[in-house]
């Protein structure tokens, strides 16, 4: 154990910080600190342009191999990049699904032709991706997808029909990756395929879903005989579940360090308000602020511990399974603390029709944190069943 960054790492950190401070100016000054969770609907055009600026600087996909335009950056460097990015107020990345999910999946499972076709667009910040997993009847029970993919022999194309839901950034994306049923005889995780589909075609319709914050960040996506070519399936029909789960495994947690910088910014803001409106005098509030700080430090240490020793593509250890439950619960409590620090002002909006203040937005958005990407209930099952090896919860018959 050596708990310090190397001189080379510190040099890298300075390089990242310098580049960001030189580039988050002018047309990009307005996007500082914007477009994060709960704010993803803001400054979309500016953030798309920002992706390209990042790419020109060589700061997209830094963990990818150099052969595909990356920097082959170490885990430590990826951590440092994410931390400095968040500290500089780098805007929410509209390209993150392509960079952190689709790219690594193509690198691991894709054919050379698929890599050549899709990786450059992700790397350059030109092509944005979204994720077509959840469906109305396939949420926690993801394997219950009903979207169908049928191979049309005459045209040599796949035809996709069905509905996806909770699709973040679908309305801004160029492509969607979709798990769809290739074998209608099979239920659950068998008989699925993993498809790469262009959004701009007659068979794809996007309808935004308004959240209880009054804003719309995710969507319903309807596929009505949408098409993709025979080459746009990753692996074989029937491999879909394996690819889909592999993709989730690529979120190795480096972005969690950046997320924690955002949390730190939020906590700093709460402390600032508590000092200025007098609630910092309240012993109960003081205790909760201290607890929030303690929780965030522990979160950071555990993330660094989690990432230590993952030098190759080996999957994360069981300590990674606790992360979602921990941060979502911590963040939820932070939202409640923010409201209690605001006191009676917590109810008042900035403006009509439904413009939330930053901390109100935090509070409301943390209600979603414990749901998306696997609810806290599902996370506890994963911890109990997979990390601890306890008996599995019985399941019903898929209908």
């Amino acid at each position: 154990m050596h708990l310090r960054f190397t001189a080379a790492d510190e040099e890298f950190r300075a390089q990242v910080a310098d580049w960001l401070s030189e580039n988050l100016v002018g047309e990009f000054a307005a996007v500082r600190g914007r477009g994060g969770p709960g704010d993803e609907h803001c400054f979309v055009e500016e953030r798309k342009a920002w992706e390209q600026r990042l790419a020109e600087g060589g700061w997209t996909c830094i963990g990818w191999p150099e052969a595909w335009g990356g920097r082959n950056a170490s885990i430590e460097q990826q951590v440092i990049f994410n931390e400095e990015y968040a500290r500089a107020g780098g805007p929410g990345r509209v390209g993150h699904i392509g960079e952190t999910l689709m790219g690594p999946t193509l690198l691991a499972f894709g054919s050379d032709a698929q890599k050549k076709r899709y990786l450059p667009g992700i790397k350059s910040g030109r092509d944005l991706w979204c994720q077509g997993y959840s469906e109305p009847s396939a949420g926690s029970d993801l394997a219950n997808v009903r979207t169908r993919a049928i191979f049309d022999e005459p045209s040599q194309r796949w035809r996709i029909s069905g509905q996806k839901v909770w699709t973040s950034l679908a309305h801004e994306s160029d492509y969607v990756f979709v798990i769809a049923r290739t074998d209608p005889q099979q239920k659950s995780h068998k008989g699925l395929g993993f498809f790469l589909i262009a959004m701009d075609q007659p068979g794809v319709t996007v309808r935004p879903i308004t959240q209880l914050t009054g804003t719309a960040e995710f969507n319903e996506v309807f596929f009505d005989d949408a098409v993709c070519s025979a080459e746009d399936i990753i692996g074989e029909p029937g491999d879909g579940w394996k690819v889909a789960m592999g993709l989730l495994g690529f979120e190795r947690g480096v972005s969690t360090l950046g997320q924690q910088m955002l949390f730190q910014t939020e906590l700093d803001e709460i402390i600032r308000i508590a000092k200025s409106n007098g609630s910092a005098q309240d012993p109960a509030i003081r205790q909760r602020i201290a607890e929030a700080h303690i929780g965030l430090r522990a979160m950071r240490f555990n993330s660094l511990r989690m990432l230590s020793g993952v030098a190759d593509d080996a999957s994360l250890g069981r300590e990674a399974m606790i992360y979602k439950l921990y941060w979502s619960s911590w963040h939820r409590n932070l939202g409640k603390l923010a409201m209690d620090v605001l006191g009676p002002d917590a109810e008042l909006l900035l403006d009509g029709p439904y413009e939330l203040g930053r901390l109100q937005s935090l509070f409301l958005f943390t209600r979603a944190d414990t749901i998306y990407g696997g609810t806290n209930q599902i996370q506890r099952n994963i911890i109990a069943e997979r990390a601890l090896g306890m008996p599995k919860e019985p399941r019903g018959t898929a209908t």
Partner: protein
Amino acid sequence: MDFTFSDDQLSFRDALHAMLVGEVTTDRIRSRWDTDSGTDEALLQQIQAFGFGSMLVPESLDGLGLDLVDFVLLAEACGRAALPEPVVESAMVVTPLLVDVLDRGLGNGFVQEVLDGLIAGTTSVAVAHPINPCVNFAHRADWLLLEHGDELHLIHRDSTTLKSHKSVDPSRRLASVTFDPSSDTQIANGEAGAKLWRATLNRGALASAAQLLGLTQGIIDQCIQYSTDRHQFGRAIGVNQAVKHLMADVAVQLEYVKPVVYRAAYTAAVSPDRADFAVSHAKIAAARAAMLAARNSIQLHGAMGYTWECDLQIWVKRCWALAREWGDDGFHKNRMHEWLLRPNALLGPEFTFGRRSITDSVDVA
């Protein structure tokens, strides 16, 4: 000692609940969101027909002569329906304040007239206590009861300045109020004024607590339905312990809050001067249960619970608003601390319902 409600009290509550279930649909609540007034005047007439205007007015002033214990179940029913109109505050906070003013021989020529209008349902009045930064539905009030130090002023809305604020709960219509206090508008001051404001705070907190009870029940109702209807892994999600325990935890809290709120209503009715700690306990406990219900219900509904389309938001946003109105958790906990840590605090079993009177043979809660 008897914690139960009479058959009359329960059937009155049931009749109101049945009416509200039919009339206060979520579609009609949402349609109020698009209007400036935020109210349904026809519904207000129906509620008036239940006697809300005169219920807490003594018979000597031409009212029905009921008390807060009679009313607490009705407030709960209004909360369960997530009723947007401020009828609970009007009946439970505004009207008793005017009655108190007249009881003490205070006021000016307008007080009786305004009370008569409230009883008849032709006048509406809102109260601005300094603990609340804003007044709900101040715009539709004809008269406002306003604070200036210990003074109590009754002033026509046209003589005040209202500034609108949007609430996190789209059903509410908030405004901050400014006015020029004068001897013409003052109806109480000094010690009497301070006492009136204190009693008003207690009735307001009690009104919130009772509605929060109902809101919590309303949330449980929806969660039971959803967890039965929604299927994952080939069965209703409610069969999973992780899901059903979310509601069991709320149910435990709710049942433990009910007697606390009912007891506070009793004390506020029978011995208002000593109701502070009972009301504060009620507000703390009811808000805590409601906040848990709000949190767990969104969780139970999964991503649906986070959408604008899902009606659950009508209830949870009201919980968030009412939990802070009339004193938040910190304010009421401080009142509890002060009472508990007094050198002569009386805490034994014989004081469960308050101070056993030494000079008085009657136990006055």
